């Protein structure tokens, strides 16, 4: 049995490679999805595992002795630190931000070790090198290599520093939900900034055996150390909570695609395998003649494919190991921890893929077992008819090559159906992927569509409102400035307050992207996001009443907008509504819409200069910037799908050629030129491909918009941001697919130019 | 036996023993050569019929040997024999002899020989075909078919000869 498998392998390298490639691609896609899905739904878990984190972090007053903690308390597995830490500020692009500096040594600890995502860790050589926490670095737009100025709280130190690395940690939540930002420095640098010992704290991390017993351990520790020594305590539950609510867009997308890729791969495998059975009828028949039972033949085929699948899985694992750090490390917003897939998931993926692919080979293997032991009788195609349609077409002087080719495509009905499915599904998925791409493209180029018309916000800071107003309006690069306020309001039925936004005035409203209804044009009109409307249980046209510091205001909801802030729950109205109603409005900020082509960083710098650094100016981050990886992943996915589709195509083409081969002489005798004979064969594959691709693209286009809407609704953005792939893109994709089909159809026919010497040889 | 001897003599005169040697060299083991006695008897008969004439050659140390040569009548007979088509169950042997000897006797070209024989087969087949159409009972039809199969085999062999000897 093994000998046959080896010989067969040598004979059909291409097919073996195809299956291995397909399986590897699917496994890679699935592993990526699993990692990203986990990162999306529970980012803390990934980081915690990757950093071997501590569940409890304590900020203690300096000099507290923690050396005996692990001995005295049984639940503690390890202690991280103590690390000196101090409050400080960092000045970047003229803007001052509060930070926590924590000193760590160049040697990374065993527990609670920050996970480097870019650059490197602190080194003794680079004294002024610092490592930023990832979410903070992103918020600050400070990549590796940027220069910062560190300053202490007294504003007396002013040290130049350079970012040498960016790392993730599980000891605190993401910035800016959790402030201040975290920067790791060498102990020497910390002392330089803040030489006064009394101003530093000790930070200690505790890794405990039983996470459920966290609060008990905390109590014990505080008791042990004395409450006066303990500054703040944070637990893993708090951190996890704070870290969640990231966009599930990524992970869900890719999980979905991974599964569909698996489906398409199954089809491809079936196609390849059953095509192979048909092609190698003679060999399989020979095996039977030699005395192998049907069961043995079937199990030989299955064993062979099991080997291919295993090889493919290994290749996929290897590729994942190599590629995920590359893919994920370069894009912000995705934790590098996503590169490590928890073993549970990995096991399910591997086992599932193996099982599914083997199942896919079951039917063809059974078919192989049933091959009759008549040696070298090639299976003739089943009886077909020159249908009425074809007859009409011929009589109507349509090119006979096209008619014959098109007709020949459907003679083997099952094979045709398999090929069409095998091509339509990848096309469908590619179209959906293109739709997502178009949406992402749109969001990146037109942030206004997801409510991010303003790219810069500026608060007056230490300027008076009048001064701030002047500065803002005087800037030539600012196209429009809207004065906005952020007010907490109480809504009946909610235990907490919700943040409401008074953006611009009713006469000059902030240009939200309204997907349904219209903007507020009068006082007491408001627009809200889908997520908020759902949680308030209100629809467009209805009224909702809120209390602003005791003052009730009734709004009529006139429109639905898309806005990613505050977890997607936003309600906005004109400021004048509050003034009218007598509700107090706090100090506001300016939302600035820049002229096209102006870089936000430039604008910030200029405004800072214009206000002598007294205004607080910040860049509004576009969540879509984080989604660059999705585009990379989509591109990779499209490539995998294309490979899968190509496999189906080539198999169909080979089968068609084999059926066709014998008819070449007759066709030429009947008066077809060699070119026409080749065209007939090409038409056969192309017709199938055309049907499949058009159906796949049409359905995909229909579905992609609703799919994006569904996902964005999950995210809280509500429906309306979905963009289908443009007709031009689709036309190009379809054209490429048809071209590939034509080429695939032509490939086996190179020797068909001359009349083959089939007439002299036997059947 | 008569005609092969005549054909051999067409090349040059020879005595009985030489003729036997030539026959053996030509046909080898596939064809049993008659013994020397038979050859002499045949030569005498040919002489009696006027197709060959003999002459005694005096040899000093050995007994006299009799050398035979073709007469004009004998030469005519050879040509007539070679040009005529062959018939009968021994057809193959006779034809082959003609073919093998024709180059030696120089009396006709081999291609022509083969072509003539082929045309003969064609004619025979034509007759047999018509016979087959007229035959209405099974036994005669089978006979005809048997003959046809033999003829086909003969043609195939003819082509083999053509390949090998031309």
């Amino acid at each position, binding site marked *: 049995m093994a000998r046959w498998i080896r010989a067969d392998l040598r004979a059909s390298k291409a097919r073996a490679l195809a299956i291995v490639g397909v399986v590897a691609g699917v496994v890679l896609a699935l592993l990526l999805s699993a990692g990203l899905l986990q990162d999306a739904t529970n980012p803390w878990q990934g980081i915690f595992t990757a950093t071997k984190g501590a569940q409890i972090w304590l900020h203690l007053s300096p000099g507290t002795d923690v050396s005996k903690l692990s001995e005295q308390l049984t639940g503690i597995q390890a202690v991280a630190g103590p690390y000196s830490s101090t409050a400080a500020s960092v000045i970047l692009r003229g803007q001052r931000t509060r930070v926590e500096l924590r000193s760590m040594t160049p040697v990374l600890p065993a527990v609670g070790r920050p996970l480097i995502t870019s650059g490197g860790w602190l080194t003794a050589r680079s004294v002024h090198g610092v490592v930023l926490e990832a979410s903070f670095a992103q918020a600050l737009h400070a990549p590796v290599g940027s220069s910062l100025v560190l300053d202490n709280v007294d504003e007396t130190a002013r040290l130049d520093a350079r970012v040498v690395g960016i790392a993730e940690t599980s000891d605190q939540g993401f910035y800016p939900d959790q402030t201040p930002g975290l920067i790791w420095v060498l102990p020497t640098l910390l002392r330089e900034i803040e030489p006064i010992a009394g101003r530093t704290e000790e930070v200690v991390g505790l890794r405990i055996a039983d996470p459920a017993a966290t609060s008990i351990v905390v109590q014990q520790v505080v008791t042990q150390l004395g409450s006066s020594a303990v500054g703040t305590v944070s637990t893993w539950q708090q951190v996890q909570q704070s870290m969640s609510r990231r966009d599930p867009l990524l992970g869900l997308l890719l999980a979905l695609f991974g599964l569909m890729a698996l489906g398409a791969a199954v089809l491809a495998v079936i196609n390849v395998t059953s095509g192979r059975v048909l092609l190698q009828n003679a060999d399989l028949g020979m095996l039977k003649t030699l005395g192998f039972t049907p069961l043995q033949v079937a199990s030989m085929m299955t064993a062979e494919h099991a080997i291919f699948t295993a090889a493919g899985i290994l290749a996929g694992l290897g590729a994942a190991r190599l590629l995920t750090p590359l893919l994920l490390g370069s894009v912000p917003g995705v934790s590098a921890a996503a590169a490590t897939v928890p073993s549970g998931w990995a096991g399910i993926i591997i086992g599932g893929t193996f099982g599914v692919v083997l199942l896919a080979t079951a039917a063809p293997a059974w078919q192989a077992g049933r091959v009759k032991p008549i040696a070298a009788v090639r299976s*003739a*195609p089943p*009886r*077909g*008819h*020159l249908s009425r349609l074809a*007859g*009409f077409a*011929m*009589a109507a002087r349509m090119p*006979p090559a096209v008619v014959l080719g098109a007709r020949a495509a459907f*003679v083997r009905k099952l094979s045709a159906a398999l090929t069409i499915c095998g091509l339509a599904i990848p096309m469908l998925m590619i179209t959906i992927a293109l739709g997502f791409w178009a949406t992402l493209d749109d969001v990146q180029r037109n942030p206004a569509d997801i409510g991010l018309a303003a790219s810069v916000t500026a608060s007056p800071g230490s300027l008076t409102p009048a001064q701030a107003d002047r500065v803002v309006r005087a800037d030539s690069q600012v196209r429009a400035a809207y004065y906005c306020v952020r007010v907490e309001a109480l809504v009946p039925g909610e235990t907490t307050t919700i943040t409401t936004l008074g953006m611009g005035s009713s006469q000059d409203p902030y240009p939200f992207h309204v997907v349904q209804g219209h903007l507020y044009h009068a006082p007491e009109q408001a627009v809200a996001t889908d997520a908020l409307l759902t949680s308030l249980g209100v629809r467009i046209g209805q009224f909702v009443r809120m209390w602003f510091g005791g003052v009730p205001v009734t709004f009529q909801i006139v429109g639905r907008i898309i806005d990613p802030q505050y977890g997607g729950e936003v309600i906005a109205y004109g400021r004048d509504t509050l003034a009218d109603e007598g509700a107090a409005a706090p100090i506001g900020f300016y939302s600035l819409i820049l002229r096209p082509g102006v870089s936000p960083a430039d604008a910030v710098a200029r405004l800072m200069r214009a206000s002598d650094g007294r205004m607080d100016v910040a860049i509004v981050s576009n969540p879509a910037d984080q989604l660059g990886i999705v585009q990379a992943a989509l591109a990779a996915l499209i490539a995998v799908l294309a490979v899968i589709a190509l496999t189906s195509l080539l198999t169909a083409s080979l089968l068609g050629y084999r*059926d066709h081969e*014998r*008819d070449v*002489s*007759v*066709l*030429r*005798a*009947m*008066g077809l*030129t060699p*070119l*026409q004979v080749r065209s007939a064969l090409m038409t056969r594959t192309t017709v199938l491909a055309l049907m499949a691709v058009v159906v796949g693209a049409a359905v995909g286009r229909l579905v992609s918009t609703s799919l994006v809407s569904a996902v964005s609704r999950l995210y809280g953005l509500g429906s309306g941001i979905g963009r289908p792939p443009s007709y031009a893109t689709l036309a190009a994709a379809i054209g490429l697919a048809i071209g590939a089909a034509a080429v695939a159809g032509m490939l086996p026919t190179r020797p068909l130019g001359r*009349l083959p010497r*089939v*007439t*002299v040889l036997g*059947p | 036996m008569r005609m092969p001897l005549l054909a051999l003599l067409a090349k040059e005169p020879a005595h009985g023993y030489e003729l036997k040697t030539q026959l053996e060299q030509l046909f080898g083991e596939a064809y049993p050569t008659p013994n020397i006695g038979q050859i002499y008897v045949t030569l005498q008969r040919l002489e009696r019929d006027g197709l060959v004439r003999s002459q005694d050659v005096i040899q000093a140390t050995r007994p006299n040997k009799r050398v035979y040569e073709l007469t004009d009548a004998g030469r005519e007979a050879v040509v007539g024999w070679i040009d005529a088509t062959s*018939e*009968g*169950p021994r057809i193959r042997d006779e034809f082959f002899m003609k073919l093998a000897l024709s180059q030696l006797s120089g009396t006709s070209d081999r*291609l022509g020989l083969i*072509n003539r024989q*082929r*045309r003969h*087969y*064609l*004619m*025979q*087949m*034509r*007759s047999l*075909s018509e*016979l087959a159409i007229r035959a209405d009972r099974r036994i005669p039809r089978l*006979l*005809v*078919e048997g*003959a*046809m199969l*033999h*003829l*086909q085999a003969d*043609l195939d062999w003819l*082509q*083999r000869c*053509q*390949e090998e000897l*031309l």
Partner: protein
Amino acid sequence: MTEVAANGNGGRLLLRASSLSKTYIGDGVVVPAVRGADLQLEHGEFVAITGPSGSGKSTLLHMLGGLERPTTGEIWLNGERVDKFSQARWAILRRRHIGFVFQFFNLVSNMTVADNVELAALMAGASRKHAKARRIELLGDLGLATKADAAPARLSGGEQQRVALARAMVNRPLLLLADEPTGNLDSAGAMAVLRLLDRAHADGQSILLVTHDLRVASAADRVVSLFDGMIVDDAPMPVKPRPTPLPDVLKLRG
């Protein structure tokens, strides 16, 4: 641009080939398959080409049907010079005026018998009604009407060849070319095919076929013998059979 063949018979020749040769060159080996063949065929004539295998018979036939391009030589079909025709023009010629039958694989495998015959007619430009009518007529003549709906693979060799001949003759071509039409058949099948050829010949069909079967060759008007790429004999068969007595071969050998 066609040139008119000048021949001694005032244009009655259907086919004239002069100095036809075909040389294959490949891998440093030069194989002259056909060397300087001259061949003529009159309207309504039945000519058989015989010869040992490797003598170039098939190549010669393929050249006359436009399926191989001659290295040198001229071919005139019905007064028109055709050897320099492009593939496309040859193809059109084959649709309407030349019927070609091979030894194997004579029918499109994924179409029924009836469709095969009709397809040939459709390709020549016949209407569907006419194609169907001709098909019914021909298959009926052949006694294959019951197999009209079957797949070619289900027919015996002889039946397949008969259908192939029907396909080749459905358009009443000027010239019927056949390459070993009985080569693959048992004697019963061969007889059936021969009957068909005789009948077509009697109807006026011009036939040029290659065969190693003596019986088929003997049915022709002329038998051309090919050897080593050259024509070595061109033997006309008498129109009426010679009144020969029962051939000696039939006499029982005792």
